[in-house]
C-alpha cells in the first residue's frame, strides 16, 4: 500500500515534470543563432564522430599499468540535486517471501524501478540538452522534434564511442603554483572557490604541468577541488549548488578549437558560476554543446585521477565510459573509469 501510494505520488510528479518540460518554443532563425556542425548538415552525433579507430587504438597505448581509477560518484539519496530534480529507486518486484519463490530450488529475485531525472549525479549532457530558443545543435529547430516523451532528433542514442584518450587538468595545482588559489572554507581539501574563472592560460598551464598536448578526439577533465563539497553530501549541498569554479567562455572556445569530444569537471555545470556576464546564461554550455557538439560531463569525481597524475606524473589515460542507447534522451547518468 505504501509503495503503491509512493509510486502514484511519484508518478504524478513525473507527469507534472514531463508536462512542464515541454517548452513553449519561440521559433528563431537557427542559422543565425547556432553554428553549423563541422560533421555535416544531417549530423546528430556531434564530437564523438572524432573517435575513429585510429583514435581508439592510439588511446589504448595509455594502458600501461592496468590501474583503474574511478571517476564517477555514487548515485544515492542525499547527493546534491537542483530544484525539483529527483532520483529515487523503488524495489518494485521481488520473490523473497515464503511461497513466492520459483521452482523447487526456490529461486528468488528482486528488481528495481528507477524514478530519476537523467541529469543527476555523474552525468553526460547530450546534444538535445541546451539550445538558444528552439535552436539546438546543428541548427536544429527542436520545436519540430519534441514530443511528450522524448526527442525525435539529437537523442543520446546517436552518440558514438567514447573509447579515447582522457586528459586530466588539475586546476587546483595550477592555481596553487600561480599563488592565486582562493579556497572555499567548506572544502576539506584545497579547492577553487565559487566564481573562480579558469582561463585558457590556466588550462594550458595545467597541460604543461604534465607535458601534455591536446589532440583531436581527446576527452578533457578539469579538477577544481569543488567535488570535495559533493563528497560531503548532504551537509554541503547548498554550498555545492550555490555556485562553482569553472572555465570561462573563452576557455570553452579554445577547447572547442582543440577538437576535444567532451569536457568534464567535478562541478555541476563545468563553467564558472556566477558567470562572467550577468546577462548571459550558461555560455559554456552553448559554446560546447550547441555550437560544437562537444559533450559536457558534470559531477565527475576528478580528484582521484588528479592525485594519480600527481604521483605518476602522467595526466593521460584510456577513458572507459559508455552511454546507454536510450532513445530520445537529453542526457543520462554514467559511469567513468580512467585506465592507466
Amino acid at each position, binding site marked *: 500500500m505504501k509503495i503503491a501510494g509512493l509510486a502514484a505520488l511519484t508518478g504524478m510528479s513525473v507527469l507534472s515534470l514531463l508536462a512542464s518540460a515541454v517548452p513553449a518554443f519561440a521559433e528563431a532563425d537557427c542559422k543565425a543563432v547556432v553554428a553549423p556542425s563541422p560533421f555535416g548538415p544531417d549530423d546528430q552525433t556531434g564530437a564523438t564522430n572524432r573517435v575513429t579507430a585510429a583514435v581508439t587504438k592510439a588511446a589504448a597505448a595509455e594502458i600501461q599499468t592496468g590501474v583503474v581509477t574511478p571517476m564517477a560518484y555514487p548515485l544515492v539519496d542525499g547527493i546534491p540535486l537542483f*530544484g525539483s530534480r529527483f532520483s529515487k529507486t523503488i524495489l518494485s518486484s521481488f520473490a523473497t517471501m515464503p511461497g513466492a519463490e520459483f521452482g523447487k530450488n526456490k529461486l528468488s529475485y528482486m528488481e528495481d524501478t528507477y524514478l530519476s531525472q537523467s541529469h543527476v549525479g555523474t552525468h553526460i*549532457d547530450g546534444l538535445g540538452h541546451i539550445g538558444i530558443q528552439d535552436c539546438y545543435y546543428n541548427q536544429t529547430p527542436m520545436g519540430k522534434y519534441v514530443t511528450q516523451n522524448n526527442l525525435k532528433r539529437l537523442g543520446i542514442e546517436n552518440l558514438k564511442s567514447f573509447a579515447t584518450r582522457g586528459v586530466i587538468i588539475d586546476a587546483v595545482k595550477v592555481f596553487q603554483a600561480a599563488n592565486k588559489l582562493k579556497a572555499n572554507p567548506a572544502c576539506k581539501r584545497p579547492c577553487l572557490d565559487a566564481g573562480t*574563472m579558469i582561463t585558457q592560460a590556466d588550462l594550458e598551464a595545467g597541460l604543461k604541468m604534465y607535458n601534455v598536448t591536446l589532440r583531436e578526439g581527446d576527452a578533457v577533465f578539469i579538477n577544481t577541488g569543488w567535488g570535495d563539497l559533493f563528497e560531503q553530501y548532504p551537509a554541503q549541498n547548498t554550498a555545492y549548488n550555490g555556485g562553482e569554479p569553472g572555465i570561462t567562455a573563452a576557455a570553452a572556445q579554445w577547447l572547442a578549437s582543440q577538437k576535444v569530444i567532451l569536457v568534464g569537471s567535478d562541478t555541476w*555545470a563545468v563553467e564558472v*558560476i556566477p558567470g*562572467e556576464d*550577468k546577462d548571459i546564461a550558461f555560455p559554456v554550455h552553448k559554446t560546447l554543446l550547441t555550437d560544437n557538439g562537444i559533450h559536457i560531463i558534470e559531477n565527475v569525481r576528478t580528484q582521484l585521477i588528479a592525485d594519480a597524475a600527481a604521483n605518476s606524473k602522467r595526466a593521460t589515460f584510456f577513458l572507459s565510459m559508455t552511454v546507454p542507447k536510450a532513445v530520445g534522451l537529453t542526457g543520462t547518468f554514467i559511469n567513468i573509469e580512467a585506465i592507466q
Partner: protein
Amino acid sequence: MGSRPRLNRRQFLAGLAAFGFGPARAETRRFRIALADFDETPGVTLEGLGFTGAQLRRSFELAARSLPVEMIYFDNAGDPTRAIGNAEAAIAAGIDLLIEYCADREANAEIAHRLSTAGIPALALVYPLPGAPVYGPDNRAAGRIAGQALGKFAVENWSGEQVVGVVIGDIAGPNPAINERVQGITDGVHEALPTLQLASLDTGGQAVRADALLTKFLQTQRGQRLLIATLDDLAAVYAKNAIEMNRRQSDCIIVSQGLDQNIHGGASEKKEIDPNNRGSVVLGSVAYYMDRYGYEILPLAMRLLAGEKLPEHTVTQHLLVTASNVFREYPPFDMN
C-alpha cells in the same frame, strides 16, 4: 566652448589605457578601488528591501573578475564614524577611487573633504557624497511601475467590480525611499483607476506581520477584489500566505518591490514567480538589482578613472519582473 577639464596623472594614464594608446604598461594598469559597503551585518537588509550588504559586496567581487582592478572592501556597519575611518584607511591604502555607501550626510561631507584633499575621486551609492556622481534606485519610478501593473491588472481582469487597494510594508520606516515608493505606487495605480483609495498596513519593519495584518484586512473586505502593493518581497511572501490561508487567491493580486531571492529564488530554492507557476497571486516584483550593483557601478568607475565626466545621477533601470521574464533576468541554475 568650455575649457577641457584638467587631468591628474591617474586620469591621464587611465585615459591612455582606455583609448589604446601608450605602452603595454598603460594597457595593463590595474586600478585599486575601494568599496565602503553600507552594512554587512548578517540580518541587516538594504534600503527597505531584501538585499544584504554581503550580496552587494559579492556583486563587486564578481564584476571585478573581468576588469583590471584590485578591490579593497570595507564595511561601514551602518556607523558614520566607522565610515569616516574606513575612508581614511582606504586613502592610506593608496586607492585610485572610493565607492562610498553611507547614509549619513555629515559623514559623507567629511569623507568627501578627505578624498578631495587626497585627490581621489569617488562614486556614491544611493546617498549623495559632495562632488561625486551618485548611482542608485529611482524609488518613485519603481513604485510607479508596480502601481501601473496593479491598475492594468484590475482593468483587464476585474472591470466593473469592486476593487480595493492596499499597500503593505514598513510604511512608517525612517528611510525616505519608502515614501517615494508609496507615492510612485499611488501615482501608477491612479493612471488606470483615478479614484481608487489605497489603504495602508504597516508592518513596522517586521515582514512577518504582513500575514496577520492582511488576514484581518481580508476579513473586512469580503466580496471585494484586492490590489496589493508590498514594499518588499518578504512582505509579499507573507501576504501570499495570508491570501492562501484565507482562500482568497481568486480575488487578490500582489506586486512587490525588490525582486530579491525571496521572490526569484536562487539555486535549489523555491521560486515564488516562475514560468511554470503563472497562476500565482504574486504577479511580479519590480527589480532593483542591488545584488548586481557591482556590474553596473564598476564600469562607471572605470569611465571616471579614464577621465570621463559622469552624469550627476545614474539610476537603476527598474523593470517589472513576472513569470514571463523572471528567468531572463535571473536565470535559474536548475537547468544545467
